[in-house]
């Protein structure tokens, strides 16, 4: 049905062609789900764009064929290609809200998709669109038809994208990271939906993802890509039970899995010959201060009591504003040198809570006791000494570092703000911090864009540590990173916790990561803490239905496969 033969793609650069994908082969049969897995930069997306004939202007196919039902897509003119797109091959993208035109209603966009390929009247297309929305299980399809993309949630927008993709009953659906931007519970629903449609419509699905858990649960066969090469192709069961290539094995190993009881995550290493293998690094022992283990009886470093933060929203233009409690009487405490994992779906109030602790705004009610003192209502000036005690690492290492400053300037900035030391002292401190986060000394003079995502997150961590804080808030700090890089950064955070006596408030939507790093865990839903306790207890024996639902939704290797055939 879809056959990719010997496909090579290169980017045009000033220094000639730079190879991006080399000699990729794979086939998908009718009704099959093929997973294409790899880290960012491995060439997954560019391969899928080549299949659609949508390569960006700076990329060229240097060799190979893309056969769709026997026709080579690469030989077609733009008109013929257009007829195939949407009708024969449809695509679902990563960011559903951004993939819909913001100024047209969702209904109009589905109708448009139908009428692009079929000569049907508007009313008839509209009827079809409503049926499609019903099929993708959107609540209240009539309302969704009238809604603009920004009025719907990410999960609903992805359903609309899927409705649009299956509108003309395509034979092949390419789904490029279709659930990466969604919450776990929504991810589960969307994956179930895709699988259901796959069975019902009989379309072959090429599922591109970096998430091995998703692959495990959904795909029939898997192609593993690494820096432009196909490393391995196997049925899903074979791949996870018996990976042949070192890279696939390493990739599977470096995923933090629920129930995995290891202090360190294995990371992917490469030897001089370019062979890839997995190593489980030993904890770093750098200084003599062997910190005491977190003591549950010690007075907590941070204690939050009945914290409330509300937003006032108007449900209708003329209505009275109503209170929306983003954080609703939350109480938590974190012991020194321990890690509190805060989990919950998007919009549950995790970030609002962390910003309240940072005192980026004043909470409406409640206390925030930091080392025993209430900082909830301190003025900006009174807050200043506490500012150096609490640091933050943000989610997006691309956005949180000023691109026009060198790494040295970035890491030094907090020291400069607090007028710490002379220039020489500061320089020495920066060098020490860079070494501590595992960056070479030469990094100091470079700019953020010269580093990879993981390295940038290391820079952000070095900056957070500049003033020797006692509390570090990590807001989705590893969510934007690849699995193997994520493992490295998580290991680093653990090392630094011992070395710098750090306490972490670790916010994440990823339950397996939270389980791996946390001593205590708080589960947040709609502004409230629904479950709170030791990580072991919560993951082994969740008491709340909501926690169980979150845990069930995590696609995990080794769980029962819901897909056809099972593992």
């Amino acid at each position, binding site marked *: 049905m879809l056959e990719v033969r010997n496909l090579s793609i290169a980017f045009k650069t000033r220094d000639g062609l730079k190879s991006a994908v080399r000699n990729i082969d794979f086939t998908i049969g009718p009704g099959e789900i093929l997973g294409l897995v790899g880290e960012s930069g491995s060439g997954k997306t560019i391969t899928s764009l080549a299949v*659609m004939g*949508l390569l960006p202007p700076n990329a060229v196919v240097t060799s190979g064929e893309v056969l769709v039902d026997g026709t080579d897509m690469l030989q077609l003119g*733009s008109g013929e290609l*257009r*007829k*195939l*797109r*949407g*009708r024969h091959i*449809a*695509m679902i*993208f*990563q*960011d559903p809200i*951004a*993939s*819909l*035109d*913001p*100024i*047209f*209603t969702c209904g109009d966009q589905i109708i*448009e*998709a139908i009428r*692009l*390929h079929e000569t049907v009247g508007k009313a008839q297309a509209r009827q079809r669109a409503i049926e499609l929305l019903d099929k993708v299980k959107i609540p209240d399809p009539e309302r969704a038809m009238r809604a*603009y993309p*920004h*009025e719907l949630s990410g999960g609903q927008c992805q359903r609309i*994208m899927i409705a*649009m993709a299956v509108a003309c009953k395509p034979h092949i659906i390419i789904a490029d990271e279709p659930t990466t931007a969604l919450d776990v519970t929504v991810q589960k629903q969307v994956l179930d939906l895709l699988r259901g449609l796959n069975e019902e419509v009989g379309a072959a699905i090429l599922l591109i993802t970096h998430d091995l858990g998703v692959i495990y649960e959904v795909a029939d066969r898997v192609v593993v890509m690494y820096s432009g090469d196909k490393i391995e192709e196997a049925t899903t069961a074979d791949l996870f039970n018996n990976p042949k290539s070192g890279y696939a094995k390493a990739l599977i190993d470096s995923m933090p899995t629920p129930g995995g009881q290891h202090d360190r995550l294995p990371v992917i290493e490469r030897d001089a010959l370019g062979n890839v293998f997995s190593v489980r690094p030993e904890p770093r022992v750098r200084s003599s201060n062997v910190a005491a283990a977190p003591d549950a009886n010690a007075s907590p470093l941070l204690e939050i009591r009945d914290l409330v933060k509300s937003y006032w929203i*108007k449900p*209708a*233009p*003329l209505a009275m504003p109503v209170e929306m409690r983003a954080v609703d009487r939350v109480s938590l405490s974190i012991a020194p040198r321990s890690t509190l994992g805060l989990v919950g779906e998007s919009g549950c109030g995790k970030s609002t809570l962390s910003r309240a602790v940072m005192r980026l705004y004043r909470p409406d009610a409640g206390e925030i006791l930091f080392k025993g003192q209430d900082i909830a209502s301190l003025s900006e000036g009174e807050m200043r000494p506490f500012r150096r005690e609490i640091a933050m690492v943000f989610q997006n290492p691309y956005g949180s570092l000023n691109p026009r400053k060198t790494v040295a300037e970035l890491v030094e900035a907090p020291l400069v703000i607090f007028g710490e030391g002379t220039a020489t002292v500061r320089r020495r401190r920066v060098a020490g911090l860079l070494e501590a986060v595992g960056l070479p000394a030469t990094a100091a003079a470079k700019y953020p864009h010269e580093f990879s995502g993981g390295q940038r997150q290391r820079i952000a961590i070095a900056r957070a540590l500049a003033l020797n804080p006692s509390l570090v808030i990590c807001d989705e700090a590893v969510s934007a990173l690849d699995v193997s890089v994520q493992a490295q950064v998580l290991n680093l955070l653990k090392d630094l916790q011992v070395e710098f006596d750090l306490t972490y408030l670790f916010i994440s939507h990823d339950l397996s990561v939270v389980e791996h790093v946390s001593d205590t865990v708080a589960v947040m839903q709609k502004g409230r803490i629904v479950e709170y306790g030791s990580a072991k207890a919560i993951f082994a024996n969740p008491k709340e239905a909501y926690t169980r639902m979150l845990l069930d939704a995590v696609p995990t290797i080794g769980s029962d496969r819901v897909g056809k055939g099972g593992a």
Partner: protein
Amino acid sequence: MNASVTGALLLVGRKLLTALIQLLVIATLIFSVMYIMPGDPVLLLLGADSNPSPEAVASMRSQLGLDQPVVSQYFVWLWRALRLDFGVSLANGYPVSRYVLSNLPRTLELAFAAIIVATLIGVPLGIAAALKRGSLRDTILTSVATIGISVPVYIMGTMLVLFFSLKLGWLPASGYTDISRNALEHFRKLALPALALGFGLAASIARMTRSSMLEILGRDFVRALRAKGMSERRVIWQHVLRNAAIPIVTIIGLQLGNLMGGTVLVEAMFNWPGLSTLLVGAVSARNYPLVQGAMLAIAALFIGINLLVELLYSLLDPRIRRKRT
């Protein structure tokens, strides 16, 4: 009534209210500026050289209401202004409103013609540049636009007159013909002033169209539209351009101040009997009521067009229209 209609009405109402408050503030400013300006209008009116008797001055003062306290003068003036009564011209005793009402449509026409000319030139050029980003065509268009922004209105006007009327003889160099008398002649005389006034705006619009198109072309949804099998032409005209229109309309709103300032020069250059001509004449003759009337009319025009631009803006973008629903 559903929520989105209520929302839209509320938005219009709020914008109208803001516009009225702006007008009131401007009216107050105009009144106070005229009050503290040096020179006594009564002496001017009676002819300062003829040494008028104190009695004559006093009777003129009370006749004009200038012997009343400032505050009451202000409210009387404001009340009259509300009914479009700006008093009489000191030069000949004709009502100011007559001058204002006859000249306002001409300036309005000039401004709108300039905006239309600017849009018709700027948007296609911007699209042409954006679609061939980095090409020679793009470079040339972008440089011309940069020059266009930097050339002052009066130089542009002079060059247009030199070329189109003196060299080619296609269009009249200046003047005004009423549309009821000779429509063709009217528009022939409108062409050059509108072009001179609109050229700078056209350049701004071209640049904004280019960058805004490029920004939209890079968005995810454009790729998704292509993946749906939509033709490139339809992607551009139906989706990209409509999204790109939002910042283009904004730039028109922002450039409105420049445009209204430009009418002063353009009307003078081309002998276009609009509000600015009226204002310039009134200022040099110290014809205070006329100055006040003309200034208020120009301000009202500015606020009015701005209001229109803002409403257009929320019409184009559903996120603004339905922000709170």
